[in-house]
Structures are given as C-alpha cells and as structure tokens.
C-alpha cells in the first residue's frame, strides 16, 4: 500500500458509478491510500446526501393523480380513434351526398337505386332465399333521453353525444358473463365518463369532476382491469358521495356485478335485490333479475329463482330472454326431480 499526496487515477475512480464493479479500479483502490481516503470521503458525502428528507406523496393527492392518469389514458385513446371515424364519416357523407345529387338529377345511374325504384330486390339483399334482416345489427330505437342529474353535475345526456344510447344499443349491451366493453356502460355512465375525461387533463378547464364521478370512473377502470375489490370500494364511494344522482343506478349495478365476479355470492345477491328494489324500472332490471335467478339456482332456491326468471322473461334484450328461458327450464327440471317418487 502506497501513501501519496495525490493520485492521477482518482479521476477514473471519481468518474465510475461504482469502482467496485471495475476490477482494475478495485485493485488500485486496494493499493492506493490516497484514493482510499478520497473515495471514503466521497462515500460519506453520498451517504449524507441519501439522508436528505424525501417526504412520501400524500395519499389523497396520490389517488387524485392516479385517477387523472387513468382518465388521461382513456382520453388519449378516444382522441386517437375519434378523428379517424370523424374523417371517414365526413368522406362518406360527401361521397353519398354527391352521388345522391347526381342520381337525383339523372347524371349517374345507380343500379340499386334503380332497382329500388322498380321494386325488385338486389341479389346482395337476399340470404338463403330470404330477405336479410338488416334491423338486427342496427340501432332500433331513438336515443334515450336522460333527465338532468341532481347536484348540478354535468352528466351529458346520451342525445348530446354522437354514440348511440343504451336504448339503441339494447341488444349489444354485454351481459354479466361477457367481458365489459366501453359500450357496456349506460348512456349516463358514458356521459359521466366523458365529462370526467374531458375535465381531467386540462388544468384550465372550469369543470371539475365531482367526487362521485371520480369514484365511479375509478371503479369502472378497476372493474375493467379485473380489480374487483377496488371496483366495489370505488362504486360504494360513488354511491355514498351522490346517492340520489343519475350515477347511483350504474354504480349500484356495477357494484353488484363486481361482487358476483369476485365470488361474494351472498353479498352479490343482496346487492342485486337492493338494485331491483331501488330501480324497478331500470333498463337493466331484467338482466339483474336473470343473474339473480342463476345465483339462486346455485343455492337450490327453485321458487325464488323461477320468480326472477319470470320477471326477466319479457325483457327487451334477446340474450336476457333466452337466459331466462333456460333458467325456467332448469328450475322446472329440478322441481320435477324433487317431486318425483
């Protein structure tokens, strides 16, 4: 070991993130007393710097940031998608308009328009000899109008958005057995999400999402990511924050679904009963009835299940009607077995 007044190699050590990782520097450090002293002083300095106070983020602020980021992710995705659709729609409108005008003045001959005028169906409109049921894949009703929400929230009614309402999309709303999609929210939920998303990224925006809206959107995102415990907690917060708002119906519905998916059958049943008690006229009432029926079948409560399926039997959604029909078959079979000698 040599003791020196200075060492030219200390600059090399000082430039290394960790001299221990470089064998050559490590060897030199073992031998040179000057470098050892200097490096020890540097390490003391680093240790002191590591003890600089670093307070942890506040929980409330952290939650706010998290919610805003989740909404920003949703918002960015929507921004990326919507201009394309808007562009395509504008092009289509221009082309159709121009063609229509030309056809009307007789400058262009459009075969399908001519056939329509003559009353003969086109080959493409037939499927296995029967006229194609176009209406099956098209919105069937006018957009749902939603009454203004309480507490001054800015939930946009479906009529104001460009998307079809829950009513119009009735047959496409996924049921509980399917993965939730964006279209699974009702018009009010979509309105709420849209208003929250619009408010989140802009610091200059005058509208700030209410606690209920924030909680609902957090619950919704948690639900979509499969974190049912957090979804349930967030939906309950939304319910507590605004028990009489338009969001309450959606929050209670998704709380029940999240409970069921989590495996808390008893709580899910209770929540579904509560939903049906509070919102008997809800568009989701049939769906909830059918789900509840199947949960009751699990616990062999045949008559109660049958009652639920009877309620869902006449739901406007074909999938719900079909499910109710199957549920009634199951309860009938089970009753036959239990009454048979």
């Amino acid at each position, binding site marked *: 070991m040599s003791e020196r007044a200075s060492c030219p190699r200390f600059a090399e050590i000082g430039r290394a*993130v960790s001299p221990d990782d470089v064998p050559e520097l490590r060897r030199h450090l073992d031998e040179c007393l000057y470098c050892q002293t200097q490096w020890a002083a540097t390490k003391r300095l680093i240790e002191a710097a590591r003890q600089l106070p670093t307070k942890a983020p506040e929980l409330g602020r952290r939650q706010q940031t998290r919610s805003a980021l*989740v909404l920003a*992710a*949703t918002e960015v995705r929507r921004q990326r998608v919507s201009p394309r659709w808007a562009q395509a729609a504008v092009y289509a409108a221009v082309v159709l308009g121009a063609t229509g005008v030309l056809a009307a003045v007789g400058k262009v001959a459009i075969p399908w328009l001519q056939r329509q005028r003559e009353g003969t169906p086109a080959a493409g409109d037939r499927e296995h000899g029967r006229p194609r049921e176009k209406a099956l894949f098209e919105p069937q009703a006018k957009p749902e109008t939603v009454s203004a929400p309480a507490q001054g929230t800015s939930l946009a009614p479906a009529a104001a958005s460009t998307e079809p309402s829950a009513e119009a999309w009735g047959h496409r709303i996924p049921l509980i057995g399917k993965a939730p999609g964006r279209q699974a929210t009702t018009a009010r939920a979509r309105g709420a999400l849209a208003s929250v998303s619009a408010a989140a990224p802009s610091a200059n925006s005058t509208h700030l999402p209410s606690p209920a809206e924030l909680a609902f959107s957090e619950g919704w995102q948690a639900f979509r990511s499969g974190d049912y415990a957090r979804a349930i907690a967030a939906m309950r917060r939304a319910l507590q924050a605004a028990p009489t708002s338009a969001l309450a119906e959606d929050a209670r519905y998704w709380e029940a679904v999240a409970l069921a998916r989590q495996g808390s059958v008893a709580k899910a049943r209770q929540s579904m009963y509560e939903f049906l008690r509070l919102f008997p006229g809800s568009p989701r009432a049939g769906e909830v009835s059918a789900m509840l029926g199947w949960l009751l079948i699990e616990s062999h409560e045949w008559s109660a299940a049958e009652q639920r399926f009877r309620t869902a039997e006449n739901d406007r959604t074909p999938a719900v009607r079909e499910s109710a029909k199957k549920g009634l078959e199951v309860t009938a079979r089970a009753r036959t077995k239990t009454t048979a000698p």
Partner: protein
Amino acid sequence: MIRRTEGKLLPFQRKSVWLADTTDEVLVAACALRDPGAMAELFDRHCDAVHRFLARLMGANSWDLDDMVHTTFLEALRSAARFRGKSSVKTWLFGIAANVGRHHIRDQVRRRSFLKAWGEIKPTPGQMPDLAAEHHQMVERVAGALAQLPFDLRAAFVLCDLEETSGADAAAALDVRPGTLGRRLFEARRALRAAVEEVQP
C-alpha cells in the same frame, strides 16, 4: 368460485389479474396501447420511486412536486410507444422525470421557490442532541451544495449515487454518452465535496 356455464348469466373470474404479475416492460407496451389498467399499475409500482427521485433532484419542500410526478407519468403515457427497452422502466421514468425537472426550473419564479425549498430541513429525531445537530449541519450543507449544482451535474449525481442506477442505464435515461455521464458525475462529486468542506468549521 363461480363457473361459467352455457346459457347462464353467471359471473366469471376475468383473467386480467395478469397486471399484477406482469413485467414493467409489458406494462409500458400496454400503456402504449392506452390501457388504463396498465397505466394505473405502472403508477402504483413506480410512484414512490419517481416522487423520491424528484424530491432529491428538486428539493423535498418543492411545493409542486406532486404536479411534476403527474407530468412525468403523463409524459410516460405519451411516449410509451417509443420505449425501446434500452434501460429499465424505472430508469426510463427517472429520465423523463429529469427532463420534467429541467423544464420546470427554467421558470425563474419557480426557480426562486426551488432554492428556498431546501431551507427548511429538520433534524432527524431520536438522536443525541449534539449528534443530531452535527447530522443536521452536515445534511444542510449537502442540501445547500446540491441546490447550487448545475442541473445536469445534479441529475447525474442523484441518478447514479442516490438512486444507485447503473452507468449504462443512467446514460440512456439522461440521453448522454457513458463518458459524458462519468465526467458529470466526477464534477458533481468534486463540487459537492468542495462546497461541503469549504464551509466546514
């Protein structure tokens, strides 16, 4: 456990619990596809680390630390598609945070508050009074010296020495060559030592 049966409207356990088990790199890829769940998971994993890094870089009492954390993750969301995996995700986030900090202190008004932010440092409780005072003085000196460092040197010091990031990762995060990073690190250490030893009684 609830199972799904044909025709039943029964709940089922969705497999998207995958987020908890997946790697950071996959999460970033999911963020590039604008998956809100992945964004939330990425935030949950790295929020504390980014907050600590920014607190060390900008001063713990900086009043807009939370805003910078928010901006960092927003930038991460926007640039997730450009992440090439040259460094770890944590270091990549540190690099973004360093850029956010650099932009932040360009504002002169905020710069003044930033310099003040180092002023209020309390001694660590539970130590002997003389030791606590000594410790407090040392930390205060380091804090003052750190605040006086040019931003690039400070970023290199915080990233390498305080956050213990490897040289290659740190160079990639700060978008400099490894040699440049080494030079900045050396300069930073030397300047800090000089500042601390100069005011020592």
